């Protein structure tokens, strides 16, 4: 039978390696002296060092997860937790060192900034090398800086929110994050301000056998609106790299936040990221996620709908190719009346890749009138790949509408036959079906990213004999 041949993601741009040039690379492993040293180098206030030490304590105390992908390939003694690039924070691209600038140029970041972004942050290894924000947003009081600057210049507000959404006790890797965090973004959108054009942070990990632990904290104040995009990539090395970032989001009353992620780590990356949002009354969070890279991903954005009428939308796609184990999904807690969640998740697995969808929907006893609808679809392109769906629901009140549905399968012969009867070749028909499968997600992305995603799923469909 003819098999659909979907090519691997074309990674040539992402794979450009720069020499491992750094001004400082922390010795491998993790202990208290390393944590203290990072804090000292960043010249942090004492409370932040205490947060780090708390993280270290929890990291040593907590067990590895007893579920999900096998993480035995990870050995903290082989990972350098802090790598400072040979660059300071710049506010002009011209000041960024040539080598680093070239990398971001190739990834199209400055180009995108000119065309369609209101602000850009770029992180290289452990430190942010570039940050900018449009003048008029600055005047409206919008804050968009790297996280270190935020700790220095907006200490009160950072202190108020840092670690409040995601506690260090959550799991082992978020504890690790708190111990050694470096870089990341801080965004504050004041009351009623509508940031019409998206802000974007791009994370690049160049140094081999190292980890990236950026912290993102976004506060969208009452009635404000923001679209934030994060992109990530790294060149491929033979040794394991680790990404354990943490994203803490606060959506206040009547506010709206769209958080888009295009994750394209290299296939030696362990992506153990944590994202969580607190949504107040009438607030809206929209997650848009594309997971294409990494060797192992464990990523489940969590939404706490704590105010009445708060809403969550999740649109995600993952593409697991050869040697990849992408374990993704979401968690949502309906904690107040009339909260709603809508989830649409898609996955494609091929060439032995493993795509797993996990979810946990909790409807608390006080969340009367809540609605939750989850739908997942999985497409398998050959018979040695794996696609699993593991959804949990926990309903604790009667006044709720909860439904979940999932489908697994290959491209249906009937659909191909139908399109062929309309004059398409078999290959064209299959290509159209796969693109159609991914289109609800690509529609949600900004134009440049939709184009990038189409690049990523470089659908050169050949009628190989399977």
């Amino acid at each position: 039978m003819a098999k659909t041949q979907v090519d691997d993601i074309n990674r040539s741009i992402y794979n450009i390696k720069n020499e491992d040039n750094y001004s400082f690379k922390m010795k491998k492993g993790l202990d208290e002296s390393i944590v203290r040293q990072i804090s000292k180098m960043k010249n942090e206030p004492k409370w932040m060092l205490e947060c780090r030490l708390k993280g270290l304590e929890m990291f040593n105390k907590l067990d590895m997860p007893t579920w999900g992908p096998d993480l035995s390939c990870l050995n903290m003694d082989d990972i350098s937790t802090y790598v400072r690039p040979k660059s300071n924070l710049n506010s002009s691209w011209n000041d960024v060192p040539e080598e680093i600038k070239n990398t971001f140029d190739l990834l199209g970041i400055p180009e995108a900034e000119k065309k369609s972004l209101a602000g850009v942050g770029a992180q290289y290894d452990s430190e942010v090398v570039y940050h900018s924000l449009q003048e008029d947003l600055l005047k409206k009081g919008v804050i968009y800086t790297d996280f270190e600057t935020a700790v220095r210049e907006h200490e009160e507000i950072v202190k108020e929110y840092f670690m409040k959404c995601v506690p260090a006790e959550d799991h082992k890797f978020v504890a690790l994050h708190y111990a050694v965090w470096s870089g990341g973004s801080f965004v504050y959108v004041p009351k009623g301000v509508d940031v019409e054009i998206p802000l974007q942070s791009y994370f690049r990990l160049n140094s081999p056998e190292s980890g990236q632990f950026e912290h993102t904290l976004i506060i969208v104040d009452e009635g404000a609106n923001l679209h934030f995009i994060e992109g990530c990539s790294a060149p491929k090395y033979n040794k394991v790299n680790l990404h354990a970032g943490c994203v803490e989001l606060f959506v206040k009353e009547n506010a709206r936040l769209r958080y888009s992620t295009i994750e394209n780590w290299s296939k030696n990356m362990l992506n153990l990221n944590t994202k969580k949002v607190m949504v107040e009354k009438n607030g809206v969070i929209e997650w848009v996620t594309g997971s294409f890279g990494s060797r192992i991903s464990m990523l489940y954005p969590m939404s706490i709908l704590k105010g009445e009428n708060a809403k969550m939308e999740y649109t995600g796609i993952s593409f697991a190719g050869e040697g990849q184990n992408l374990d993704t999904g979401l968690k949502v807690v309906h904690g107040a009346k009339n909260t709603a969640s809508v989830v649409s998740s898609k996955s494609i697995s091929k060439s032995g890749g493993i795509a797993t969808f996990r979810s946990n929907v909790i409807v608390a006893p006080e969340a009367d009138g809540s609605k939750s609808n989850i739908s997942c679809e999985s497409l398998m392109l050959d018979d040695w790949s794996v696609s699993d769906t593991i959804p949990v629901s926990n309903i604790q009140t009667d006044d709720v509408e909860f439904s979940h549905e999932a489908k697994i399968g290959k491209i249906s012969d009937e659909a191909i036959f139908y399109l062929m009867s309309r004059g398409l070749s078999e290959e064209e028909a299959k290509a159209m079906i796969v693109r159609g499968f991914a289109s609800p997600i690509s529609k949600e992305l900004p134009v440049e990213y939709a184009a990038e995603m189409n690049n990523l799923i470089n659908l050169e469909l050949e009628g190989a004999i399977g």
Partner: protein
Amino acid sequence: MKKMVVLNETPRRTSKSFGINNIKIENFELPELKDFSNVNIETEVNIENTVHEFKPKFSIGEVLVNQIKDQANKKLYINIDKDIKKPIVIDFELDETQNTLVDNIVIRAEEGKKGTIILKYRTKNDDVQAFHNGVCNVKAKANADIKVIILNLLNQKSENYYSMNNKLEENANLEYVIADFGGSKTVTNYYSSLIGNTSNNTVNTMYLGKEQQLLDLNYIAEVYGKKANIDIEVYGALKDNAIKHFKGTIDFKTGCKKAVGNENEYCMLLSKKAKSKALPMLLCSEDDVQGNHSNSAGKIDEDKLYYIMTRGISKKEAQKLIVKAKFNNILNKIEDETLKNELIEIIDRKLDY
């Protein structure tokens, strides 16, 4: 000695904090076993009182499996070597003196043979504190066509642990109809291995939980055969403080080309304090299959209730009507009218306040 036991492990783990990987029963104690003779059997075929050991791949839990293996006080071996017209009925009644039943039932259906087996587990009255740990093993040879009806009608004070292990050969058809109504704790483990090509396994379960009842259902089907078909339908209603965990897994193994699996769970919540957890898993390592699952939970549609009430029926009766209507498809799979009416009566009684 009382201890905590862990039962009904799911084939794939999730985070411990979700509380659905298994069910922990505190203060569990295996009771002293006596002989059990309160059983009434109607049959056309010869039933023997010895069975062979069984080794389930996914068991309800070691402590219960070992009890059955070593100490079963009722063993029945049913060999269906001819087509049977009238269902085999095995009716267990637990009372004050015979309040513990550990039964090991093996049903072997020979090639191309047909038959229906009804297993009833009842308590004599509402005060008996019964303990039931049982297993029903079905081996359906090629082209066999077997229907098994399992009725858990124990009272609210009893403990009920039950396993079903099935193996389906080429083109075998195995249909289960299960009513899980009784037991302060009801832990049910269902495992089917669809080895034969074009084998077909359907499971229709209805459950009812009230007061402090705890139901933990763990259904697992492994699909190996080409064009095999598995259908799992579970409908239930919870009132008062009842808690239900439903875990269903359809595992498509590499090679089960053109297999189809459907899994559907629907939970009606009749009280604010009832709690429903569900984990309907689809595991898939074969592309040429169709797998669907859905689950939903919520209260009874207000409009429907209102409509029925405008016809002069009380809210309670209207609720009962709607629940029974949901169960109707499953009830209709029981051909015996007397038995069906008996079940409807029990549903009515359980839904009364």
